[in-house]
């Protein structure tokens, strides 16, 4: 390797934002024909590093080399011109345009009078699509494609130029196994052509399947680069979190209460079908499955946001019909949603106002809101949940992810619900707050709440749940008690393999 020149080299990159040192002397090298994983917890600085590389942020100091030349990335166009292609995690596509126009966005082939050269466009696009082995053509309207196919369009973009380096940011988040195989073939082809690949993912099994080296960031700092072949999942996790997270099994030792929530034969169109389960007081039931397995949609139905097409919901044994979140809340169901910033909080409002929002109508003194009572509620849960904020006047938009999540949880605890549904409780939250939130969920169960936890992180589900419901493609495959469950049989269940069928 010594006589081979790196395709891309980042040296001592420092980037600060007001109050945060997002990148603190990070170095990173990609060799031709190498798949190099970039790993780290959320907030470790991966995306900032990629934005620096893409010219969206300018570094405070440090240098970027493409081949042997130091370059200044003035903007996205510059990065592209230098042969560095990004495949974004959040789809960066225009729904109303055709597949071809999306793939060649910003670089449509031109003929006289500024006209788009449609023939050439279609021909080039179809050549790329053929390589990707997908079932749609250049003229298809992008909005008519499934999310997975849209992801393939995003990937196709990287193949339009003679890329020197391609950055894949969580490319498999919405892909099926079959599509993953195609993606990995594409990566192998690029690799064979001598392209350097940066692969960002949280999925250990993929990292160990396809990468050559792994670089780990933590809190904006470079933690080191290791050869994949000589590493283990444990050693990489250790580098990422700095200490070992307590993820021991944690089944309840207390007596479980009555059934608080029961669902019988619940269906919602194509989203999920014939779902039945129970949640007892004092119990944490984990819901595990891939994105699109229907877990979030079940939570949304229980919270009155989606009408079910069939089935019953029973609270304390009595059937209820939930037409709106207001209905659900009035009956004691609460939801900590998946998308904290989009669904959980009004970012422009202060901590207190966010926390008391669902019960604002009941906190009255005369015709007005009883602000004293509001502050009392806020102070109580601030202490109980250890919410770190200068005071209730602080805008929640300025809090860290963990503290924001605690505000959302406090919002519901202050309503004393029967059932607490938590969707992805620790997404985008740092390690320390993560274990605090895990502990909190266990404590809530001990206090007698019926808790539903939806999570895509297996260690988390194993850690907090008394029972685990495994879902695949809109159906419950199996329900495990904490004694029965192993990583293997859980993975089988969420991959659609029925127990006993596995070889």
């Amino acid at each position, binding site marked *: 390797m010594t006589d081979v020149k790196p395709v891309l080299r980042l040296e001592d990159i420092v980037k600060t934002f007001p109050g945060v040192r997002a990148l603190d002397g990070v170095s990173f090298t990609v060799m031709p024909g190498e798949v190099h994983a970039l790993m780290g917890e959320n907030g470790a600085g991966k995306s900032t590093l990629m934005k620096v590389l*893409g010219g969206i942020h300018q570094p405070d100091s440090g240098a970027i080399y493409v081949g042997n030349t130091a370059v200044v990335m003035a*903007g*996205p*166009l510059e990065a*592209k011109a230098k042969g560095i292609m*990004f495949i*974004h995690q959040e*789809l*960066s*596509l*225009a*729904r*109303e*345009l055709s597949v071809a*126009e999306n793939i060649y*966005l*910003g*670089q*449509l082939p*031109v003929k006289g*009078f*500024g*006209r*788009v050269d449609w023939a050439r466009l279609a021909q080039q696009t179809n050549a790329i699509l053929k390589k990707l082995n997908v079932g749609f053509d250049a003229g298809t309207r992008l*909005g*008519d494609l499934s999310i997975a196919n849209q992801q393939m369009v995003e990937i196709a973009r990287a193949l339009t130029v003679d890329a020197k380096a391609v950055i894949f940011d969580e490319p498999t988040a919405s892909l099926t196994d079959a599509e993953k195989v195609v993606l990995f073939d594409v990566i192998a082809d690029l690799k064979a052509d001598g392209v350097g690949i940066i692969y960002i993912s949280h999925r250990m099994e993929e990292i160990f399947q396809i990468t050559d080296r792994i670089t780990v960031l933590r809190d904006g700092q470079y933690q080191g680069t290791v050869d994949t072949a000589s590493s283990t999942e444990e050693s990489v996790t250790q580098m990422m979190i700095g200490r070992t997270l307590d993820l021991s099994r944690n089944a309840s030792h207390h007596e479980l209460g009555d059934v608080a929530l029961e669902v019988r034969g619940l269906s*919602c*169109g194509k*989203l999920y079908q014939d779902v039945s389960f129970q949640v007892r007081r004092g119990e944490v039931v984990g819901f595990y499955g891939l994105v699109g397995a229907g877990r979030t949609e079940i939570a*949304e139905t229980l919270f*009155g*946001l*989606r*009408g*079910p*097409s069939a089935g019953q919901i029973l609270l304390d044994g009595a059937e209820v019909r939930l037409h*709106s979140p207001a209905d659900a809340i009035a009956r004691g169901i609460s939801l900590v949603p998946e998308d904290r910033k989009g*669904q959980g909080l009004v970012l422009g409002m202060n901590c207190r106002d966010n926390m008391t929002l669902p019960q604002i109508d009941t906190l009255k003194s005369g015709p007005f809101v009883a602000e004293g009572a509001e502050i009392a509620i806020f102070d109580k849960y601030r202490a109980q949940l250890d919410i770190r904020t200068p005071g209730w006047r602080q805008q929640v938009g300025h809090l860290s992810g963990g503290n924001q999540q605690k505000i959302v949880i406090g919002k519901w605890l202050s309503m004393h619900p029967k059932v607490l549904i938590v969707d992805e409780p620790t997404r985008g939250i740092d390690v320390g707050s993560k274990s605090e939130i895990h502990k909190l969920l266990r404590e809530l169960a001990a206090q007698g709440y019926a808790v539903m936890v939806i999570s895509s992180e297996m260690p988390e589900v194993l850690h907090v749940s008394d029972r685990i419901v495994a879902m695949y493609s809109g159906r419950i495959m199996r329900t495990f008690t904490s004694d029965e469950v192993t990583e293997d049989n859980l993975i089988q269940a969420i991959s659609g393999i029925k127990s006993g069928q596995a070889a």
Partner: protein
Amino acid sequence: MAQGMRSKALKSGAIWGFIVLELIFFSVAGEFLSLSDKEFMDAENMLLLLKQSAPIGIIAMGMTIVMVNGNIDLSVGATFAIAAIVLLDSMTWPIFAGLGDWVIPVAWLLALAVGTALGALNGLIVWKTGIDAFIVTLGAMLAYRGIVFMFNGEQPTSHLNWTLVDIAEAKFLGLATASWFLLIVTFAVWFLMAKTVHGRNAYAIGDNREAAVNAGIRVGPHMMINFAIIGFLAALSAVVFYSESGSVNPNDGMLYELWVITAVVLGGTKIIGGAGSVIGTFGGVIAIQLLRKGLGHIGADTSTVNLVIGLILVAVLILDRQLNMRGKEELKV
């Protein structure tokens, strides 16, 4: 997906279906209600309709670009008035005295240049300050109107050039000058939006601005060009209209922005950008003009026109929403 196709077909065809309905309704209703003996769908009447559609129609083409782009322009009525004043007044300026009838193209160019510059100014402010186009052009609407009044107070500005009137009243292949301008502008903007890179980028920016930025499209200058185009078209509309009338009131062009936006939305352009068609806008313009003429034909007054157009605009929105509904399994937020 089949449902998506059906609703798409319904949407793009809706405006033409509506026009056909209008034609049938007014022809039949006209038999019973009309004061004149003339047929509503008589060729002469339809040609007149095309001509009368021109002032709003030409601006509506520009508005289609700007709205597909994800912006809006409320200042077109005021720009229209300013261009009209420049057109009529510049022909009397002493420095052009020696030009004879050659003053006409000079005046035209001046008016068009002023309109383009005013539009470009809006675009520049939107680009450089990042203020929403709605607010910028709301401000521009007031400011440009103020400039109109500053010019001649509340007095009209008039100048009749008979050569100019002859040109404006001329007919070529049976179509009036104004009609030709409308058709040419429609074709040109259709070509721009459907065939050129600039047009396709306009859709991309309106659809997903971040994606466009990431793809290296320079969004700021792009939007500024579109504002310049709508300014140019507002001025062109004034040039076409006032060459014939020869007199402009300081209140002329008021509420044009509302008519224009109504036509564009009727034609299927999305208010949030990213979707819309020039042909649809043309249909929207014709539909509105047909409605005005038709209601006049059956003896209704202007008040009814306002009422009906307002209600139709709301009805179109409701229809559009119904077509996009996916049933009760949809997330209720």
